[in-house]
Structures are given as structure tokens and as C-alpha cells.
């Protein structure tokens, strides 16, 4: 008994530093933050409870509503990224010469800091930049487009950058899953005379199902929470057309020092995300048990 108690005490001693840090910087922000979103908190004066005022203000605010709409439009990135990444994973899941270098190339955007991504794509999207030049040469467009300065285009340019950053990440996820699949099924199917296409749709895709669900869920959450790309590419402009919901939270909370307003916006996003996550998990479970 004493031995057991000793073990327990020791275990908590080992766990202590991690638990303290998690409590301070992961749990506290959520609890204290949700409290603050119902107040008029600021660092320089006393705090008052204001009830739902911050939330009401949000839904009367055009910028936030545009942000929510844009966050939903951002979801278009999800199927593109997932289909692209899975196809790419299938294409690099082999031992062809130099395949390792291709995999590395696709992963390079993933390890690059967002600030650098923002600067480089700022160059690319410039009206006299590389993208317009290439598209003009290929006769896809007839006049140079203002990718980041045209309010009808800027959001899609940002979404493309998000796709570009995500492709390699999800490719590696799918690749890891593909490599853990047993080879016997494929071999049996080849013996039965199934062609590549049939093998892909009838064997690979069904077996990848759990990975597809997990990746899609991660991708949906990431799309709803996108804001860093906005920060480094357009800062919400031109004419507030590229605000996403979370960029609004960041912009209000940090740049305009309206912390409660920002927190309220971020909790609206969070609640949507938690709802989606639980929905997906419920949908996932029965398949897992099969």
C-alpha cells in the first residue's frame, strides 16, 4: 500500500511541470477567455460584466459577417487539398528513381514559416509578377490580374496559398497510411485480374477510409480557422474582402485592443469547430469497430 502511494506521488511529481504549463497556457485561456468575452475588459481600467453585448455587436458587424462568409468559402480548399494530397500520395508510393526528392519537394512548403510564405507569394501575385507572366504566356489570361489587389480575387489567392501549404502535409499523412496497408489484398486483386483503376477504388480507398475522415476533419477545422495567411498576404484588404472570422478576432483583439470582442468572435468560431469535430467523430466510430 505504501509502495502504491509512493508510486502515485512519484508519478505526479513527474507529471507536475507539464500539468502546470497546460493549466496555465491551454486551459486558463479558454476559461478566463470565455469569461472575458462577457465583459468590457481592458488592461487599463476596471472590468464590468456586459452580458451578451459583445456577441450581439458581432452579429451586427459587417466585417465579422463577411469574415464568417469567407471562412465558409474557405472550405472549398478542403476537397481540393484532400483529393490532391491523396492522388499525390498514390503517385509517390513506389520505389521509382528520385521519388524521395519529389516527396521532399512537396513537403518544403510545409516546413516554411508563414511569414516567408507571405512574402514569396506576395512576389508571385504581384501584377508584374511571375504568376501573371506565366499565365499570360500560356494565354490563360489576356491582361495581368491584381491577385491581391482585386477584391473579387484576393480571397481565392489566399485560399490557393493555403492549398499550397497543406498539400505536402496531407500527402505525407496519406503516404504513411498507404505504407501501412497490407500488400496481400493488392496482390490477390492482381491475380484476379483487377486493373489499377479498380484496385484503387475497390481496395485502396475503402482501406484508407479512416485516414480520409481524419484528414478531412483536420482540413475542415484548419480551413475554418485560417487567418495567418490573411495576415501575411493582405491583412484583410482590399476593402475588407479577405477578412476571415478568426482574422477578425485577431484584428480586433490585438490590433484594435478590443480583447473581449476578439474573444467573442473566436469563441463563435470555436463552437462551430467543436460541433463539426464531434459530428465527424460520431460518424467515424461505427466504421472503426467493423
Amino acid at each position, binding site marked *: 500500500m505504501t509502495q502504491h502511494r509512493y*508510486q*502515485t506521488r*512519484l*508519478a*505526479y511529481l*513527474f*507529471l507536475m*511541470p*507539464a*500539468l502546470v*504549463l*497546460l493549466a*496555465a*497556457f*491551454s*486551459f*486558463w*485561456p479558454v476559461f*478566463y*477567455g470565455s469569461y*472575458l468575452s462577457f465583459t468590457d475588459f481592458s488592461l487599463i481600467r476596471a472590468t464590468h460584466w456586459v452580458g451578451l453585448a459583445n456577441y450581439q455587436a458581432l452579429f451586427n458587424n459587417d466585417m465579422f459577417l463577411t469574415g464568417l462568409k469567407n471562412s465558409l468559402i474557405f472550405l472549398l480548399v478542403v476537397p481540393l487539398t484532400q483529393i490532391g494530397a491523396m492522388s499525390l500520395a498514390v*503517385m509517390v508510393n513506389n520505389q521509382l528513381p528520385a521519388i524521395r526528392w519529389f*516527396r*521532399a*519537394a*512537396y*513537403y*518544403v512548403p510545409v*516546413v*516554411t*514559416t*508563414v511569414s*516567408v510564405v*507571405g*512574402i*514569396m507569394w*506576395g*512576389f508571385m501575385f504581384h501584377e*508584374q509578377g*511571375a504568376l501573371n*507572366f506565366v499565365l*499570360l504566356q500560356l494565354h490563360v489570361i489576356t491582361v495581368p490580374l491584381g491577385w491581391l489587389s482585386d477584391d473579387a480575387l484576393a480571397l481565392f489567392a489566399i485560399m490557393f496559398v493555403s492549398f499550397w501549404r497543406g498539400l505536402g502535409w496531407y500527402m505525407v*499523412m496519406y*503516404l*504513411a*497510411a498507404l505504407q501501412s496497408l497490407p500488400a496481400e489484398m493488392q496482390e490477390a486483386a492482381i491475380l484476379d485480374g483487377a486493373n489499377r483503376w479498380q484496385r484503387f477504388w475497390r481496395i485502396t480507398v475503402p482501406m484508407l477510409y479512416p485516414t480520409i475522415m481524419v484528414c478531412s476533419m483536420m482540413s475542415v477545422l484548419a480551413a475554418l*480557422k485560417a487567418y*495567418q495567411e490573411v495576415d*501575411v498576404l493582405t491583412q484583410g484588404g482590399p476593402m475588407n474582402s479577405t477578412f476571415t472570422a*478568426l482574422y477578425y478576432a*485577431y484584428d480586433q*483583439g*490585438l490590433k484594435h485592443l478590443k*480583447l473581449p470582442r*476578439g*474573444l467573442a468572435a*473566436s469563441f463563435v*468560431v*470555436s463552437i462551430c469547430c*467543436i460541433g463539426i469535430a464531434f459530428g465527424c467523430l460520431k460518424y467515424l466510430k461505427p466504421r472503426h469497430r467493423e
Partner: protein
Amino acid sequence: MNLRPAHVLRLFLHYLVLAVIAIVCVFPFWWTFVVAISTKGNMFEFPPTFWPQAVSLENFSEVFRVIPMWNFLKNSILITVATVIGKLVICSLAAYPLSRMAFRGKKLVFGIILATMVLPSEVNFLVNFVSMTKLGLVDTYTGVVLPNIVTAVSILLLKQAFDEVPQDLLDAARVDGALEWVIFYRIVLPLMTPWLATVGILTAVEAWNEYIWPSIIIAKPEDFPLSAGVLYLRGTYGSSTRVIAAGTMLTVAPILVAFLFTQRFFMRGMDGAVK
């Protein structure tokens, strides 16, 4: 080797598609690099130059003149090293009892740690900034590093690694009367080196790349790490595009080199995540 024309054609198309996607992924880096080492003319003109012209390192020396590049580099290294060491020590300490010790409340603690993965964490920094103000850690690197030390993912990865250590080894040591602490760092930890390296490298990349939190918590731009400093460079009046490109290259170069040498660790981390 199968050399039927149909097969060769298919192989060619396969590589063609792979190459086009690879170019899309890598081209922005190449163009920025070309701009950074060239000194002639205007960057934004038609047709643009995609090959270096009038090569010199002038733009790079200009970067060091207009912004405190060495400071940025030093700060990035400091933040990265501190985050990696802090995470490896504290997360492996936490993962060990979760994997290898029997104690009361184990399931609950594990559940609490996992719960942080579903918490809405994206804008934690809004409140963390308030906490740091109250703790007096604004404008310190301690303030930059502390919130990034513990993540549920790292604890989970390390716990899986501890799970793979054979139980016989621990039993033998316990029978011999070794202290738990000694078992942990003399017997188990040395077996974990590949996993510690994996978590360390993934953490290093994250810490090096983080730009929002450091730029919030650090007051003076000269104390920024590279990732935040490079945006400061872009915002500075009078720096030319070529100088910005050079600064950008200096910011990504260490990460790209590190990545090319340690690719397999990235794949391993992912394997753990998928399981």
C-alpha cells in the same frame, strides 16, 4: 525492366505530372533566390528573369546593414533551443508515468491532456498576452517559450515510444531495487533517442517558424526572431524587393537545410500520428 512503349509513355506521364507539381511547390523559393542573388534591373518587369543575372552577395550584405540580422538569428536560435530542450525534458517526464507507472487517477490525467487537443486554442495568445503581462514576462524570451513547451501531441508521441520499451527491462531493474528516477533516465531514456530526435526536430521547426506570438510578446523589433523580423524588414521603409528577398532566403535557408538532412524524422513523426 519493362520497356514496352505503353509502359514508357505511362512512366513519362507519371514523372511529368510529378514534376509540374514539384515546380509549383518549389518555384517561389527559386524565384526569390534568383532575385536575392541578382543585382540588375527591376524585379517586377515583363519578361521577368528566372535565372540569376549579375550575381553578387550585395543584397545579403545590405540586409545585415538595414536590420539587425545577427540579432534575429541569435534570437531564433535561442528560442528554438530553449523550446526543444524544455519540451523534451518536460514532455518525456510527463509521458513516462502515463506509459510505465501504475498510479491513481492515471486515466483522468491522460484524458485531461488529450482534452487540450480539442480545446479552441487558435487565439489562446489573446489571453496568454494578458497572463504574461500579469506574470511580468512580457518582452522576455521566457514569455515566448513557456506556452509552447507542452503540447498533447508531443506527450502522446513520447508515450507511444515509452510503450514500446520491453517490460522485462523495467521489471528487472525494479527487482534490483533501482529507483524509478534512475530507471527513467539511465535505462529507458537512452532507448528513446530516435523518438526524442523526432519530437525535437518537429518542435525545432515549429519554434523556428512561429511568428505571431513572438511579435506580440516582444516589444522592440531588434529583439525579434527571424520569422517575425523578416516581416519587419518588409514593413521597413526604403528596403528594396531584392533586399527583402535576401532576408527571406536567410530566414528559410537553415530550415530547408535541416529538413533535407532529417527528412526521415518527419515521416516517422507522421507514422506515429496516423497510428
